[in-house]
């Protein structure tokens, strides 16, 4: 007979944080440094990229040569354990709509897998409704967040260049790396047709941070996604959680899957009930303040699952907006080969773990048939071979003249084929747009009325469709990419899609930028949180992940999650001191 007793933690903390990714890691860091007693719950295991490393491993050290599998869809070497499907933790869909939900249960969460692209939202990004009448304005503006972006830049480190672009605010930057060869080609071609290409802005330490001896400088292995042993890039585990723990003010409870937010009879949050994944026992931990940072999806799920007489529609959900306005970035990608790079000279061009240049949004929507913009990311060159290397040679080696200038019969075998792999190596490139979708009430996640996960926790059901806005934006990406590739003298080999395929627009969720489910606002009838990420109807409850976003911008959300979490944490410190919460 299993033991059904609920184990209550005897210690009462100042703050209980759920989730250790960008938002939760930052909250733990800021609060712990201020001497606040924190308990940090994480649904996965402990993780430290200095120890749990796949960095500098060769492809043959993976029996699948780096190929992905269910637990590591981005490849066997990827630091993030998790994926689109997790055994025993399903999610469902309404009306046959599609939404793919990427989860990573481990210390650092999804900051263990990301491109380190760290873009500030610009002044326009907080006030889009005032510009185009769609969606909603944020209750804050760039000027409210800018000081926090500055502090995040200095604390975590980011490279980039001052460009003085109106909606791409400059930060406090470390110097960027020089462009790679294909990036020079991209820059030359795109600039010639009026598309700007500037140094990328990634949270990677091209030089050591001043006053931080805990982290080494980047040594250019291009493997940020594997986790960095010298902490030369940002992941929440190494840069935030580890120093937070060092303060002595944080207790981490790993493998703790939060079930619901506990509330008092007055409707005030009192703590978290969770199941320990190791012993499957039920636990409760208590705190004066509860901070959710479990991801936009998980935080909404937790709140909707925390019903009480004071909060019958779910905690902090008097507005009914929780779960609604879910939106992910749009994504379209295309790629090809550059014939002039066939037979290229070999040298180490790994560089940092990501693009060295990118294209910020550059057009005026007034002249276009869709709202909001997108940025463009580029890749290519002589990367480390992995599973999939050389696939489909029969589609390439009959198409172009070989070393001797003669076009061969496609396919084949033997010494001549073996040489083809060498000849075509390093000539591929690709590009992808990441754009802003409109946050809509009818794109949402809700509690599935009939399905629970293996811990008995009701699961999320998604309802999501793209509108004409996003589809037209995708078409614009298609046209732009083709123009750039044509100008570069490249040959497109994949990614050209027509109307019947929504111009290659990715399935919602695939870009892993989902936000908006617990949005902030000044009107408690239309938003769940106030401008400090504090729940309107539960003053000691905060949400510091992407859930609080009103709109997504054409930027990756991490830097804004970090800045807003820091801002909310400073507010919590202040309110605790004033004994308001």
């Amino acid at each position, binding site marked *: 007979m299993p033991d059904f007793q609920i184990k209550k933690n005897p210690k009462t903390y100042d703050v209980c944080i759920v989730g250790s990714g960008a938002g939760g890691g930052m909250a733990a860091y800021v609060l712990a440094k201020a001497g606040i007693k924190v308990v940090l719950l994480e649904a996965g295991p402990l993780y430290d990229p200095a120890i749990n490393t796949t*960095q500098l491993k060769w492809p043959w050290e993976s029996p699948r*040569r780096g190929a992905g599998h269910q637990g590591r869809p981005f490849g066997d070497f990827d630091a993030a354990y998790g994926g689109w499907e997790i055994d025993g933790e399903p999610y469902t869909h309404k009306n046959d709509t599609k939404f793919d939900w990427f989860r990573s249960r481990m210390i650092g969460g999804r900051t263990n897998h990301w491109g380190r692209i760290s873009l500030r939202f610009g002044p326009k990004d907080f006030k889009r409704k005032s510009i185009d009448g769609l969606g909603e304005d944020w209750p804050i503006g760039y000027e409210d967040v800018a000081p926090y972006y500055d502090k995040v830049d200095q604390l975590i480190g980011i490279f980039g260049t001052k460009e003085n672009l109106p909606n791409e605010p400059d930060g406090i930057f470390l110097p960027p790396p020089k462009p790679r060869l294909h990036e020079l*080609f991209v820059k030359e071609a795109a600039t010639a047709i009026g598309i700007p290409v500037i140094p990328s802005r990634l949270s990677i330490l091209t030089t050591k941070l001043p006053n931080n001896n805990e982290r080494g400088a980047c040594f250019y292995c291009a493997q940020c996604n594997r986790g960095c042993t010298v902490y030369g890039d940002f992941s929440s585990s190494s840069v935030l959680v580890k120093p937070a723990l060092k303060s002595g003010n944080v207790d981490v409870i790993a493998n703790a899957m939060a079930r619901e937010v506990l509330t008092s009879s007055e409707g005030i949050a009192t703590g978290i009930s969770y199941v320990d994944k190791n012993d499957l026992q039920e636990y409760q931990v208590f705190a004066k303040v509860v901070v959710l940072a479990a991801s936009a999806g998980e935080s909404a799920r937790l709140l909707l699952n925390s019903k009480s007489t004071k909060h019958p529609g779910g905690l902090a959900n008097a507005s009914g907006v929780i779960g609604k306005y879910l939106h992910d970035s749009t994504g379209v990608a295309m790629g090809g080969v550059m014939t002039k790079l066939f037979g290229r000279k070999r040298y*180490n061009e790994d560089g940092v773990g990501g693009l060295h240049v990118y294209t910020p949004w550059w057009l005026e929507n007034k002249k276009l048939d869709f709202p909001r913009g997108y940025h463009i990311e580029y890749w290519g060159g*002589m990367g480390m*071979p992995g599973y*999939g290397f050389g696939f489909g040679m029969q589609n390439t080696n009959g198409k172009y003249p070989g070393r001797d200038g003669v076009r061969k019969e496609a396919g084949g075998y033997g010494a001549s084929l073996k040489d083809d792999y060498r000849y075509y190596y390093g000539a591929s490139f690709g590009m992808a747009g990441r754009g802003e979708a409109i946050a809509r009430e009818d794109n949402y996640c809700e509690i599935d009325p009939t399905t629970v996960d293996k811990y008995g926790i009701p699961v999320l059901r998604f309802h999501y469709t793209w509108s004409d806005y996003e589809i037209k934006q995708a078409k614009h990406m298609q046209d732009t990419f083709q123009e750039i590739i044509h100008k570069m003298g490249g040959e497109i080999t994949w990614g050209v899609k027509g109307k019947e395929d929504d111009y290659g627009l990715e399935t919602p969720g695939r870009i892993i930028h989902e936000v908006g489910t617990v949005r902030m606002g000044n009107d408690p009838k239309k938003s769940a949180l106030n401008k400090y990420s504090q729940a309107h109807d539960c003053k000691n409850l905060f949400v510091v992940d992407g859930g609080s976003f009103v709109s997504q911008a054409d930027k990756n959300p991490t830097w804004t999650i970090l800045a807003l979490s820091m801002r909310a944490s400073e507010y919590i410190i202040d309110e605790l001191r004033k004994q308001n919460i």
Partner: protein
Amino acid sequence: MDRRKYLKTLAAGTLSTGVLLESCSPAEKQVKQPEDLSLVQGGPARQPDEIARFKKITAEKFFDEHEIKTISILADIIIPKDEVSGSATEAKVPEFIEFIVKDMPRHQIPMRGGLKWLDLQCLKRFEKPFSDCNGQQQIEMVDQIAWPAKAKPEMMQGVAFFNLIRDLTATGFFTSQIGIKDLGYAGNRPNQWDGVPQDVLDQYGVKYDEKMLAESVKFEA
């Protein structure tokens, strides 16, 4: 610690911030690689269910001896030894194929069925399975399925099979130690990225403009 020494420490495989800090102290203490970090055996980079999956997969055998023999002959026809490097079997491509079809079950029927298809073709043609044919006969058979654009319609199942085994052989080879060396991939080591080498810039007629040179990260000579 200066940057050069820093890179050297990293290259020595003593990669950890603990080590980094130790080396920065006056003693410049070096610490040994702590433990076996092998991805195959597990190590701290792998989760328990990944290790369990690996053990389960490697405990099973998918291909029988005859199939492995056929795969080995085909792999060496696809990637033979040449003046640059060894053959597919020297790079243990058949072992890789055995693993990957268990890891990616979608390859199992196309591989098993393709091998069977090949043997039946050879039985009809030469009254022997592929592996018992002589070298000339084997090449005669392979020539029927290795060239998609000129293959006969009745050979298309064989073409699909050969495309698959060509892919798996190439990937298995060029992700092996022999294959990476052959390819000349020069990365996966601590270094300083200071831009494209000058002779390559010259070859393609491109250069870094003054803005790039002024704002990019600089390294000590």
